[in-house]
């Protein structure tokens, strides 16, 4: 990713990772606000997310990002202070700004040109919300990075006298504050410097700094790591308390701080740390921050035992820094390089293969099943499986981040086609392998666009159909029998099957006289070159069809299917394997070759009797299974291992279920075993036959191919299924 020898690049990289998390909590917060949350903590989360991005961006000199974040933050601050009432229009704007902010973050990360014009447009709209509430100018000192200094030298106390004489008095002293500040040991542990804080404070107005040395013990009893000093700063400034607190926000909980008007009783108050609170389960604010509302809270939450907050800025220690979880429990998270996990996964793969080899040789040694060796092997197998499951869990991630991206797609695409669309997500915490999540983004984006553009009717048509003008798109994820099922459903008009059939005939995709079942018509949508859009809209005219979606889902070992009801809506469901690394397989033998089929597609196994097979036409056979006819395919022939045969008596047949609910029978020679196999990709080889999904290594070290039965049958001829509709119509 980045050059590991450059520490700055590494820190920057972790800043961008941090940004992703902040953007996620920003989205969450906005979502809650939009749903009518009145909780002041929600807007605080939103505000802090933008603020932290601004702070980090300032440290790296990302000016455009800072500029936008700052002014966005200003508007949010008005909402936070209840000076601005945000309606749903404002929320839309906030979402757009959050989307733009993530664009800016990405552009900064990838060194792309900054979309400045878009920033300006959004800022103008954002600031129009403010009216004449305030028109704060961007002040560079606002982004002075706090404590990001990489030199960890102890502050030179002598310097403070300079600070005293270098205040930037912009305004005449109209007001004054007395700030008492006593750092605790943790403040230094996390790399903060009182000098920086006091300098920043001085930037707010004219300051007089006095250092209190009364706690300083004689030299012999001085503990060098204990802070003894405290400072009292008298600040002449028109700023409000919140601005002063902002200076100290990164050291919240790491110091004693009191901010008072002169004359008020000087009573020291420890800043209340962020209470256990609120919203999302996942996103945690990386920096605990003093929210003004919390500061005035009469009953501050007791300080959490784990007072060690995350470092205020992403640095290399952030990798293992304990983080506060918002539900109060100290849940620590470790950030690990994906490469290391990949390595672990590969090693576990080797372990599984080795275990298979071991069990094969022990089996060949003819040991009694009750011997110690066999018992030990059984234990070993169980452990291997446990280890494998645990390792897979490391790679698993909730689909939440993916779903959040989709909510942006809905916002943008609904605006583009002028439809009012609401996205409802469910099962965001469902965990899926990280690589799967990454590769799902594109197909899912297309499906969502498709639902918004084609699935939902125009508001007028919805009115005529007696539906609410706002369309709904549901995006759900759930675990179902060892797979992950992700569904995109809309409450639109459903598939116009007549039209679809007509289009397919016009385009020459199906013969005109072939009767098709509803299900088959629906599946025509996945044919390459198919598009029902009578007009090419800005969304669908991108040259990506549902066939591409299907291909990418299949390359993940997944399947996609459609259910549609006229007038009620359409549901696309994707079913994916939990992981791309292991598979529960059925090991079979065909013409002397060992092959593996995914266990979950095998419905049952049969042994063919003389009456079971019927010839449909030469070379095409069907099997009678409990009154129905199922097409018969000889795997050995399809894979080119042997010539076609006319008789199949005595052959063993696997009945498999296909995506569209239909079935097929595969002729094989023998069934060996059911076992977990490690998937080895064939991406590196320079040829790949249809139907061959991957390969695996067997116990004897030989390679066996893993088949994708649906793919291999599809490759046999696209019209085979339609031809069967004639015979299967019972």
């Amino acid at each position, binding site marked *: 990713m980045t050059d590991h020898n450059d520490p700055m690049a590494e820190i920057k990289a972790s800043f961008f990772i941090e940004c992703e998390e902040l953007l996620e909590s920003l989205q969450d917060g906005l979502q809650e606000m939009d749903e009518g949350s009145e909780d002041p903590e929600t807007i605080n989360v939103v505000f802090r997310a933008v603020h932290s991005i601004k702070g980090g961006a300032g440290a790296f000199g990302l000016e455009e990002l800072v500029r936008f974040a700052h002014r966005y933050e200003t508007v949010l601050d008005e909402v936070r202070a209840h000076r601005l009432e945000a309606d749903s229009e404002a929320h839309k704007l906030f979402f757009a700004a959050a989307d733009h902010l993530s664009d800016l973050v990405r552009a900064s990360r990838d060194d792309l040109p900054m979309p400045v014009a878009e920033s300006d447009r959004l800022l103008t709209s954002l600031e129009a919300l403010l009216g004449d509430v305030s028109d704060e100018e961007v002040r560079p000192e606002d982004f002075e990075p706090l404590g990001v200094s990489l030199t960890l030298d102890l502050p030179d106390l002598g310097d403070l006298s300079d600070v005293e004489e270098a205040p930037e008095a912009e305004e005449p002293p109209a007001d004054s504050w007395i700030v008492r500040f006593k750092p605790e040991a943790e403040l230094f542990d996390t790399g903060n410097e009182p000098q920086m804080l006091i300098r920043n404070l001085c930037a707010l107005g004219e300051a007089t700094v006095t250092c209190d040395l009364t706690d300083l013990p004689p030299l012999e009893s001085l503990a060098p790591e204990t802070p003894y000093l405290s400072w009292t700063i008298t600040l002449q400034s028109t700023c409000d308390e919140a601005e002063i607190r902002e200076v100290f926000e990164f050291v919240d909980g790491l110091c004693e701080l009191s901010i008072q008007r002169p004359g008020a009783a000087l009573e020291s108050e420890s800043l209340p740390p962020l209470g256990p609170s609120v919203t999302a389960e996942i996103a945690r604010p990386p920096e605990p921050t003093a929210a003004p509302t919390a500061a005035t809270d009469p009953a501050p939450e007791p300080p959490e035992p784990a007072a060690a907050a995350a470092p205020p800025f992403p640095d290399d220690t952030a990798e293992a820094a304990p983080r506060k979880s918002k539900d109060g429990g100290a849940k620590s998270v470790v950030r690990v390089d994906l490469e290391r996990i990949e390595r672990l996964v590969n090693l576990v793969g080797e372990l599984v293969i080795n275990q298979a080899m071991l069990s094969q040789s022990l089996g060949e040694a003819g040991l009694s099943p009750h011997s110690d060796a066999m018992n030990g092997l059984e234990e070993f197998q169980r452990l291997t499986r446990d280890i494998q499951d645990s390792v897979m869990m490391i790679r698993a991630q909730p689909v939440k981040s993916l779903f959040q991206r989709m909510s942006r797609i809905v916002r943008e695409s609904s605006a583009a086609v002028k439809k009012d669309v609401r996205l409802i997500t469910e099962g965001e915490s469902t965990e899926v392998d990280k690589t799967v999540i990454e590769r799902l983004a594109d197909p899912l984006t297309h499906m969502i666009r498709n639902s918004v553009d084609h699935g939902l009717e125009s508001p007028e048509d919805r009115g005529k159909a007696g539906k609410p003008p706002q369309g709904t798109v549901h995006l759900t994820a759930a675990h179902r029998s060892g797979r992950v099922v992700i569904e995109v459903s809309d409450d639109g008009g459903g598939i116009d099957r007549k039209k679809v059939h007509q289009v397919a005939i016009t385009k020459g995709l199906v013969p005109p006289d072939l009767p098709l079942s509803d299900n088959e018509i629906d599946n025509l949508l996945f044919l390459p070159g198919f598009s029902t859009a009578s007009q090419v809209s800005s969304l669908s005219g991108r040259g990506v069809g549902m066939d591409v979606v299907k291909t990418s889902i299949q390359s993940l070992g997944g399947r996609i299917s459609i259910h549609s009801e006229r007038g009620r809506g359409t549901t696309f469901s994707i079913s994916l394997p939990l992981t791309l690394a292991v598979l529960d397989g059925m090991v079979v033998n065909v013409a002397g*070759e060992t092959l593996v089929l995914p266990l979950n597609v095998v419905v049952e196994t049969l042994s063919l009797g003389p009456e079971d097979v019927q010839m449909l036409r030469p070379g095409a056979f069907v099997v009678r299974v409990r009154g129905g006819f199922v097409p018969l395919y000889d795997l050995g022939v399809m894979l080119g291992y042997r010539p076609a045969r006319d008789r199949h008596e005595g052959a063993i047949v696997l009945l498999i279920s296909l995506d569209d609910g239909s079935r097929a029978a595969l002729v094989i020679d023998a069934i060996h075993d059911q076992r977990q196999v490690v998937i080895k990709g064939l991406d590196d*080889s320079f040829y790949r036959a249809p139907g061959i999904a991957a390969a695996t290594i067997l116990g004897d070290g030989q*390679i066996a191919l893993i088949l994708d039965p649906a793919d291999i049958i599809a490759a046999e001829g696209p019209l085979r299924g339609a031809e069967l509709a004639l015979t299967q119509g019972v």
Partner: protein
Amino acid sequence: MSDASPRGLELLTFRVAEQEYSLDIMSVREIRGWTRTTPMPHAPDYMRGVINLRGTVLPVMDLARRLNLPSQETNDRNVIIVVKMNGTLTGLLVDAVSDIVAMSEEDLQPPPDIASDPQMSVVRALTVIDDRMIRVLDLGSVVPRTSDEMA
């Protein structure tokens, strides 16, 4: 490869269908004994299939068939030369490995221009060792470059 200045190089010589060929040793990763390959369906006939190379799937090419030479029955003396080309590993099945010889680029002669001979298009140069003619293979044209198309 087209470097004009004379430089030393080492060739790994081996026999394929009773003929002597060689490869620049820098492209050779390892040499393995013959193991049974798993055939890939619908692959070109010169592809013998895939083998397990320490946990990764290695495609193996029958060099004799690739060069349109009569394919030999495989026996235990056959070896697989693992080469790296265009970033991917490929195994080349040969009859036997003979020797490693050092020579300079000057000792290589361009092959006679027999454009119609498909077998010669994969031969980069000829050289003579102990009065035997050795063909130097152009690995880039032996190993199909379809991985580029897929990328």
